[in-house]
Each structure stands twice: as structure tokens, then as C-alpha cells.
């Protein structure tokens, strides 16, 4: 079965880049969300294999969305990677406390991002 990625960002620019990367260089199915609320809803409906999550978003931020997602048994172990411009240490700490597995700062390098994602999905990296 094809792996499914949930890409969450309120920036069209970032979504365009992520979508292009995974559509051209992987066979993953993609699901997109533009805020934390939509991310939680789609995570529950789609049960993705991995989530790339922005932090600063309208309606519900990435930390809150991450905490919400972790409450659901079916999503407790899905890898969540924060993708954000906020690279300060307190932000990183809050990200891990909210339940994320990894952290990538923008602007990200597409080759590095796909390597991290593959690391989680191909079993090279474990929770």
C-alpha cells in the first residue's frame, strides 16, 4: 500500500514546494491542510503515514494540532515533523513537548527534507 503524507501549512508557497517534491520524487499519496483544525480533521479521516506540520497557522497552531493528534490512539505513533521558520530553542522544545518527532527549519533544502521523510517511512529511523 502506498504511504500517505499529510502536508500542513498556511503558506501556499511551502505547500507548492512540498507537493512538487513528493509528487515528482516519491510515490507517496498526498493530503493537504492549511491550518491546525483542518490538519486534525484530515489526520483522523486519512490516517497518514507521516505528517509535515507548520507551527504558526490560523485557527489552531501546529503545537496544538500535534497535541490533539496525539490524543487519538490510531495516531499516537505517526511521525510528525515540524517544518517552520521558528528555529529558536524554546520553539523546538515546545515542539517536542507537544509530541512531534523531528524539526526542520525553513527555508528547507528539498533533498534533505526527502531524506528525513524517507528515514521515517523506510524504517531507517524509529520513534
Amino acid at each position, binding site marked *: 500500500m502506498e504511504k500517505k503524507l499529510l502536508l500542513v501549512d498556511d*503558506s*501556499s*508557497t*511551502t505547500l*507548492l*514546494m512540498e507537493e*512538487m*517534491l513528493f509528487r*515528482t*520524487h516519491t510515490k507517496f499519496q498526498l493530503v493537504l491542510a492549511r491550518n491546525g483544525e483542518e490538519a486534525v480533521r484530515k489526520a483522523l479521516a486519512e490516517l497518514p503515514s507521516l505528517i509535515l506540520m507548520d507551527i504558526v497557522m490560523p485557527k489552531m497552531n501546529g503545537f496544538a494540532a500535534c497535541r490533539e493528534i496525539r490524543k487519538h490512539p490510531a495516531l499516537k505513533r505517526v511521525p510528525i515533523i515540524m517544518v517552520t*521558520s521558528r*528555529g*529558536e530553542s524554546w520553539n523546538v522544545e515546545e515542539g517536542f513537548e507537544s509530541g512531534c518527532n523531528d524539526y526542520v*527549519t*525553513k*527555508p528547507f*533544502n*528539498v*533533498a534533505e527534507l*526527502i*531524506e528525513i521523510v524517507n528515514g521515517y517511512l523506510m524504517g531507517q529511523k524509529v520513534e
Partner: protein
Amino acid sequence: MTLTPEPQAWMGSETDVARLEQDLEDLSAQYLQQFGEASLDDGNIVTLSKLYAGAKRLHEAVKEGAVADAIVEIGANLIGCEQMAVILARGERDKVAFIGSAGLNRRQLDSMHMNARAIIEEAGMGAVYMASGGEEPDPFLSSLGIVAFVPFPLDYATKGGIVLFDLLPQRDGLDSSDRELLKLLGAYAGPCLSTDKGKDQETSDKGKSQEISDNEKDLEPW
């Protein structure tokens, strides 16, 4: 390998707008194809990814009539700059309007109020300025803390541009992929912005464009 086209004459006619939209659509399709054909260890892969996202986002923004916001978003997400301004000279000779901005501090704001016209004139009809990546720093722009300036050539004159201040802490400086993206913005952002005419261009920070000039130094931050 030439990735970004040179700016074309822009007079704002309906034909020019149609050509602009077609150019952006063609460019994003071209970058997408090149990206798809490149391996992930190709030296151009990062540049191609930025050019695709930049061209595609500008194309979307023209259709939505929200070009200034898109430029600010491109700066934040593809370059790693959250302290920037988009300025455009309008009407009366000395009037320069902020039409988009993000994260400027008081010092940068004051600097823009006092020097917007001079920044545009310093650029002249020149190419993109970057304070890193092997380029000799411009003493005037560097003294204002500007790390890059992208001039907008419109109607055969520089009518504004994108001013980039401090980069996010995770960026050591601008690189060749940023230069290509800034060149793309230099070629297309100005014409894209001019298609927003009549849509009451808005700033990201305050919701309204605001005129500035050397004689107006006491405006509230936007």
C-alpha cells in the same frame, strides 16, 4: 545554465498582462519538468525548487490580486527573511508607497521612511543586489542593514523594489539559489504588482498601503 529570464519591457497593456500570466505558467511548468528530471543530488535541485514555487506562487497571486502578500510569503518561506518591505513609487515624484511588509523593527521602519526614494535611486536600473554571495557590499545599502534589494523595472525606469533586511538565524547568508529566485522576482514581481492596480493594494502588516516621502517622517508604523 541560465534559469531565470531577463526582464522584458513592461507597459501594463492588456497584451502585457496576458503575456505575463503565460510566461509565469510556462516558467513554472518548465521548472517543474526540470525538477522532476533532476536527481536529488543535482547541484541545481534547490534552485529549481525555489524557482518553481516562486513562479507558481506569483502566477496564483496575479489571479487572486494579492501579489504583495505573495512576495512577502516568498521572502519568508523560500529565502528565510521575515523583515522585509515591498515599495513602489507612485504618482507624485517623491511619493513612495509601502505596499507590503513584514516584521520591520522601529529602526528599519525609520530607515525606510527616510531613505525609500534614495534606495530606489541607488539601484537605478541595475540588477539584483545581494550583500553576500561574492558581491561587493554597497556601502549605502549596507549602512541601512539591507542584505538584498530587488529593483522593479517598470516603464523603462526603476519604480520600486523588494527590500530585505535581516535573515532568520538559521540562515548564514544568501546563496546562488537565492540569487536566482531574486532575479525571477526582479523580472516578474514589479509587473505582477502593477496588475493589482484598482484592487487597493494592501500591506501585510496593517491592511492599507501607506505613502512615504522624505518629508514625512512621523507616520505611524504599519
